[in-house]
């Protein structure tokens, strides 16, 4: 964080010196009133306050504190880019160095929202370019960014240091090229799960020729060919590089060459971990194991996009130090996993494919006693496919990894008992996301709904803030959530519940609820009404394919004028049906200080 390096800004220091001096002695006008003194003192103290929740509280004390806080806030966090206009944000906060912006709701990731819905970065980059010339960091999640936006960014912020783009789209390699060439102080360029268009521009070649200050270069989602020689040279002239995540077009032979140039890496994404084509004549088998041995600081390993199992042993030398391992693109067997995981005693974060079966998870449970986060993704992400993992794996994990805090588990079959066991064995759970891929699947042993399992989770895991439910669920499950889920902030519901009561239980029972996303569940207007007391406290509510009517949504919009109520059709529906139908396919609503947005596409109606 730049805060550690910088002293309080020059303005403030000057102010202190000039207290009591003659007005007009240069710089800002100084009033000798004691209020001003207090405000200056406060500003100097507030520099050290970084938590935005604390800052929000500070700003509510009185006007003086509000002013002081707004002058000293360095990081601006906007959880919904439409909750506030850029103009309002920059009017209040004058000295921002770091901007965090989040756009589309999460269900947009799964094609539930028609494309071109919004969340454009353009108005923000335009406004901040003028207002925050000293901006250093930008973090964007689920925003639509164009190459023009990136070009404006690159030329507007001479001190720009860090860009992190997560789940964004709309730009291509030509935008990256401009960034690389113009941002001379760039330390971090992290592209995570973005959709990047291939403009056939060799953006790697655009980094300046001299030594770079790069500390982190993550581009595993950029599926575009790069000039490897230039990448190698870039790595060679980046002595501060600690994090490097390659895309799947980098072969294992190329990886070897990069690793021997950067043994100081702490985070490595290995690229394909395979040969990209026929073994070349001149290439010998790369001694990839020795390259790993040389990377003594490696703690986080990912990639393995097209893994050749023969090369797995190459990573043994680093396993003992790994705290994070991402095998979620590696279609490996239980045996192949076991050979690795048995060395990973320090592992805290583990992402894997269900190709390892329950047996693989049992091996994880046996070794990774410090595991905090587990994600198990499906190789075959369809409802009716074979399920290689089940309640057996979940149970094993719960028994072996008692410190578990976060789990995402995709499976085809589950039992209440296993989920209940996890609720008891892992009391530190903060995030519990279980996805039983077959819709409405009951407990496959007892035939009962999964109510009791999820009920146990909300009851026993007292720190739980995020929950995703699935399987056959009645209103009972929602009663449990409303009754016990007092800390839940994010709730994800799909194909669940019997009646409006389900949603009512949650809206009335969960005071901390911030983000609620629901699809294909039988909740109607009456249920929607039951949340009127709470919607201003939420970041958003998403309901798709439920039982809402336009009338019901309109009522909410009337009753809560500061709520933006968007209704839209999914992209599978015809236009002609729109006029006839009173039913609402997608409802997306959120609080906003600045009223409805002006960039809504035609398929969105704002009530």
């Amino acid at each position: 964080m730049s805060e550690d390096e910088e002293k309080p800004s020059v303005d403030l220091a000057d102010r202190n010196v000039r207290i009591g001096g003659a007005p007009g002695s240069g710089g800002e006008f100084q009033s000798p009133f004691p209020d001003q003194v207090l405000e200056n003192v406060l500003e100097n103290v507030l520099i050290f306050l970084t938590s935005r929740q604390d800052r929000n509280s500070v700003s509510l004390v009185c006007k003086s504190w509000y002013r002081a806080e707004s002058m000293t806030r360095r990081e601006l966090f906007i959880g919904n880019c439409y909750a506030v206009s850029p103009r309002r944000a920059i009017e209040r906060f004058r000295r921002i160095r770091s901007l965090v912006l989040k756009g589309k709701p999460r269900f947009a990731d799964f094609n539930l929202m028609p494309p071109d819905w919004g969340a454009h970065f353009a108005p923000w980059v335009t406004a901040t370019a003028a207002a925050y010339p000293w901006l250093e960091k930008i973090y964007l999640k689920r925003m639509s960014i164009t190459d023009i936006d990136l070009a404006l960014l690159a030329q507007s912020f001479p001190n720009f240091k860090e860009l992190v783009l997560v789940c964004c789209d709309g730009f291509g390699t030509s935008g990256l090229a401009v960034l690389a060439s113009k941002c001379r102080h760039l330390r971090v360029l992290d592209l995570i799960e973005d959709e990047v268009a291939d403009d056939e521009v060799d953006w790697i070649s655009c980094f300046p020729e001299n030594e770079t200050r790069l500390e982190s270069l993550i581009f595993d989602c950029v599926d575009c060919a790069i000039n490897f020689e230039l990448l190698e040279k870039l790595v060679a002239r980046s002595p501060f590089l600690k994090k490097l995540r390659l895309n799947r077009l980098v072969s294992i032979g190329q990886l070897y060459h990069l690793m021997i140039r950067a043994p100081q890496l702490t985070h490595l994404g290995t690229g394909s971990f395979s040969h990209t084509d026929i073994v070349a004549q001149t290439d010998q088998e790369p001694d990839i194991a020795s390259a790993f041995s040389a990377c003594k600081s490696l703690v986080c390993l990912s990639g393995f996009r097209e893994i050749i199992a023969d090369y797995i042993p190459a990573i043994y030398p680093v396993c003992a130090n790994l705290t994070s391992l991402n095998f979620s693109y590696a279609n490996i067997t239980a045996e192949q996993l076991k050979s690795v995981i048995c060395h990973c005693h320090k592992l805290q974060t583990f992402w894997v494919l269900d190709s390892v079966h329950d047996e693989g998870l049992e091996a994880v449970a046996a070794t990774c006693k410090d595991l905090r986060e587990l994600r198990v993704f499906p190789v075959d992400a369809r409802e009716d496919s074979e399920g290689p993992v089940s309640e057996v794996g979940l149970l094993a994990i719960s028994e072996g990894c008692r410190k578990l805090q976060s789990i995402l588990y995709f499976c085809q079959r589950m039992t209440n008992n296993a989920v209940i066991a996890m609720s008891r064995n892992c009391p530190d759970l903060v995030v519990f996301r279980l996805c039983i891929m077959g819709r409405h699947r009951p407990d496959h042993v007892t035939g009962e709904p999964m109510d009791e399992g999820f009920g146990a989770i909300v009851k026993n895991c007292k720190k739980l803030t995020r929950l995703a439910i699935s399987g056959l669920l009645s209103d009972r499950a929602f009663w449990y959530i409303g009754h016990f889920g007092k800390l839940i902030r994010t709730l994800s519901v799909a194909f669940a519940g019997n009646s409006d009561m389900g949603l009512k239980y949650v809206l009335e029972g969960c005071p901390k609820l911030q983000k609620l996303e629901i699809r294909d569940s039988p909740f109607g207007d009456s249920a929607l009404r039951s949340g009127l007391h709470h919607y201003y406290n939420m970041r958003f509510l998403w309901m798709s394919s439920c039982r809402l009517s336009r009338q019901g949504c309109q009522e909410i919009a009337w009753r809560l004028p500061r709520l933006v109520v968007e209704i839209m059709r999914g992209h599978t529906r015809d236009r002609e049906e729109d006029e006839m139908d009173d039913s609402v396919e997608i409802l997306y609503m959120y609080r906003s200080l600045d009223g409805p947005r002006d960039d809504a596409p035609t398929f969105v109606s704002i009530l």
Partner: protein
Amino acid sequence: MERTDTYERHHLKATELRLGLPGTDEPQKQSPATASIKSNKRALPESAKDCSSNNNSCASDVKDGDCACAPSSKAQVVGWPPVRSYRKNCFQQKKNEPDVSGMYIKVSMDGAPYLRKIDLKVYKSYPELLTALENMFRFTIGEYSEKEGYNGSEYVPTYEDKDSDWMLVGDVPWDMFTSSCKRLRIMKGSEARGLGCV
């Protein structure tokens, strides 16, 4: 967790009418208790475009006891399961291959200082494979004939099969070869007597 009988009877019974999967080709592997759940599912609009129902979609409407029109089999619902398309697509094509990690086998040549590895998957036929081997090791193989093997060649390609026997390359159909070949050895012709060479 307490459950009153009435609650259970009312709600659980209600849920009994709920669904199994929206019609699949394979028989359901479900316990008998769930067998009755299969019917009466109201289809979702995405998965039942031909359904005459215009109602707003909903997973179930058990109170009415409506019977859904059967959704088309294998119809996948939009955005379900909630896996990002990038991830889904990564494994689509790979699913169809029997051996995901490529079929790399060692190739040794008599007299060469070190071995090589090739991916058999890359080749579609014997001529392709043999040409690649010729290029890799810079030698020539003669023509193959069933009767006489690689007559007149300085070198002869052989392979070790699943039973650990050393066989002449070219005798069996290509697919059978790729599935049984464990490693390749390019033998000197002089040693290859008995494998069909003169």
